[in-house]
């Protein structure tokens, strides 16, 4: 299977700080068309393309834009979620630092569609070194009349501001992200109201992931049918995958949606490193399920992956070889969620800590079957009662690992010696 470079075509090729460079290779054609269209026409093209969110949930992008279009307000916002906090995910970093013009163009087009004159890019603190590139790209667009007042002499104004995070995974959740831009602690809000009605500063807002936005200019340029020609029926287009862990060729790859996970690992990325055996794969970042080597023969398409209990989400594929202990990795994962819970609601604040303690108990030979039963109860409560996706997704890796690697958990409960995690017990790093 060949890589299909659509979003990444000019990554590493153009100067990310000079808009002219991107114009010279055909960039901003989508924006040129969009400024002459009316809002509903733009939204129809995006809806028709079948584009779905690349940030996690796979929500249809056109519908999201339509909500904000339908709400009356003189001020509206476009927000780009560049928080990329999901452990194992590096794809947005590549787009942000190597072709930020795709993001700028997509935001401006959405701005034109809903009648917004202002966009924010929320950049995670860990990517502070990218801010300078982004700012230079924005300035270069302003200098070339692609942003600012009277874009391309169409009478449409649009400006983009950069807002920084400073280390908080939960700020990737859309309402927490709004709070953070507003100068507050990044704690999720109760919903409704939804962002399309009341988002950033209480105004109608469209928020999308970096990769989602990067598709929009190209869809406008080439048309919805072009986009539907790639990928699967339910998930058209390409997808960026970050393939990492114990794999021969680590990196960020772009393939049509629907590529088979097994092919991706063994054919495209060279298989497991150093001739080791495959133990497990975690797809979808830290909040994705752990699956075993028998389960990896599946197409990576948004609906297929969710029907099998997973989330294609951000397209992260973490490959784990048999030298690792799955219980140890699940403990590392539970520690992450314990540290990132914002503490606003009890099921998650208390639940993530309890969950970590249970896994640690098992890992250190203090667990019993009763512990597994308690984990069941706890995860059920967390799923039902957590305010935001963090508290719900924290349970997914744990329950999937127990289901798919039950034997390993029982071994640790039985206090059988585990040569793989023995040296690591009692701490997390």
């Amino acid at each position, binding site marked *: 299977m060949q890589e299909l470079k659509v979003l990444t075509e000019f990554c590493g090729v153009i100067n990310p700080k000079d808009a002219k460079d991107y114009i010279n290779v055909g960039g901003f054609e989508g924006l040129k068309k969009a400024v002459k269209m009316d809002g509903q026409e733009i939204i129809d093209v995006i809806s028709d393309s079948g584009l779905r969110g690349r940030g996690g949930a796979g929500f249809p992008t056109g519908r999201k834009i339509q909500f904000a279009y339908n709400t009356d307000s003189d001020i509206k916002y476009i927000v780009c979620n560049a928080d990329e906090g999901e452990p194992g995910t590096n794809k947005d970093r590549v787009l942000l630092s190597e072709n930020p013009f795709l993001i700028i163009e997509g935001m401006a087009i959405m701005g034109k569609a809903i009648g917004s004159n202002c966009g924010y890019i929320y950049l995670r603190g860990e990517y502070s070194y990218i801010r300078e590139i982004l700012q230079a790209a924005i300035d270069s667009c302003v200098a070339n009349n692609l942003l600012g007042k009277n874009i391309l002499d169409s009478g449409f104004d649009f400006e983009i501001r950069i807002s*920084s995070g400073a280390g908080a995974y939960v700020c990737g959740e859309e309402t927490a992200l709004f709070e953070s831009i507003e100068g507050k602690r990044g704690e999720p809000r109760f919903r409704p109201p939804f962002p399309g009605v009341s988002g950033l500063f209480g105004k109608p807002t469209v928020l999308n992931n970096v990769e989602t936005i990067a598709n929009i200019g190209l869809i406008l340029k080439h048309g919805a049918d072009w986009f539907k020609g790639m990928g699967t029926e339910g998930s058209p287009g390409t997808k960026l995958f970050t393939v990492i862990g114990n794999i021969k060729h680590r*990196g960020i790859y772009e393939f049509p949606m629907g590529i088979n996970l097994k092919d991706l690992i063994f054919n495209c990325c060279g298989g497991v490193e150093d001739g080791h055996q495959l133990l497990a794969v975690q797809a979808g970042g830290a909040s994705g399920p752990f699956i075993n080597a028998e389960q990896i023969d599946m197409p990576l398409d948004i609906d297929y992956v969710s029907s099998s209990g997973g989330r294609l989400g951000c397209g992260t594929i973490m490959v784990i070889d048999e030298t690792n202990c799955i219980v140890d990795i699940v403990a590392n994962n539970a520690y992450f969620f314990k540290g990132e819970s914002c503490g606003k609601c009890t099921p998650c604040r208390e639940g993530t800590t309890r969950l970590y303690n249970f896994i640690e108990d098992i890992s250190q030979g203090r667990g019993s079957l009763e512990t597994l039963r308690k984990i069941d109860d706890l995860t059920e409560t967390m799923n039902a009662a957590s305010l935001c996706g963090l508290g719900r997704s924290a349970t997914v890796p744990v329950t999937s690992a127990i289901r798919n690697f039950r034997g390993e958990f029982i071994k640790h409960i039985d206090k059988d010696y585990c040569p793989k995690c023995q040296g690591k017990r009692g701490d997390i790093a």
Partner: protein
Amino acid sequence: MDRTEYNQVKASTLVEVARIAAPYRDKPEMLMEVVLSVEEIVPMFSSQVTAVIAREMNIPQTQVYSFISFYKMLYTGKRGKYIVHMCQSAPCHIRGAKEVLESAEEFLGIKVGETTEDHMFTLAYSPCIGNCDISPAILINGRVYGNLTPESVRDVLKGYIRGEVQ
């Protein structure tokens, strides 16, 4: 910046803090920008510093403090000139992050969460820094180092001690 200022921030520094915050009076949404700029000139966000920010921006001091304490890359306690964020998430973990961490701890003579006596380095745990394609990775003041080994992490730190890297 003078790191003997931990306990008593100089008046001249506080004047500088006020100068940074003053343009954003009644604009609480600029708090992150103010905090990030102030961070460059103060040794830590002590109560003197947060009081000045609160006064100039006209927001409660508790809001400033609760804001800073929420974000993991901001510190209300002592920190060194260089903050070494050691990634601890699974993709780095399964490629030897623990050994890299232990080597750094031993080399600097401090544990994670601590600051060296000369106030040069703070070692901090960090979740994924978005460079798993070169794990195990660390982040030092906006610079990323990857594919580390227990040996190479020491060389990285030495570069800062020698002043080769600023």
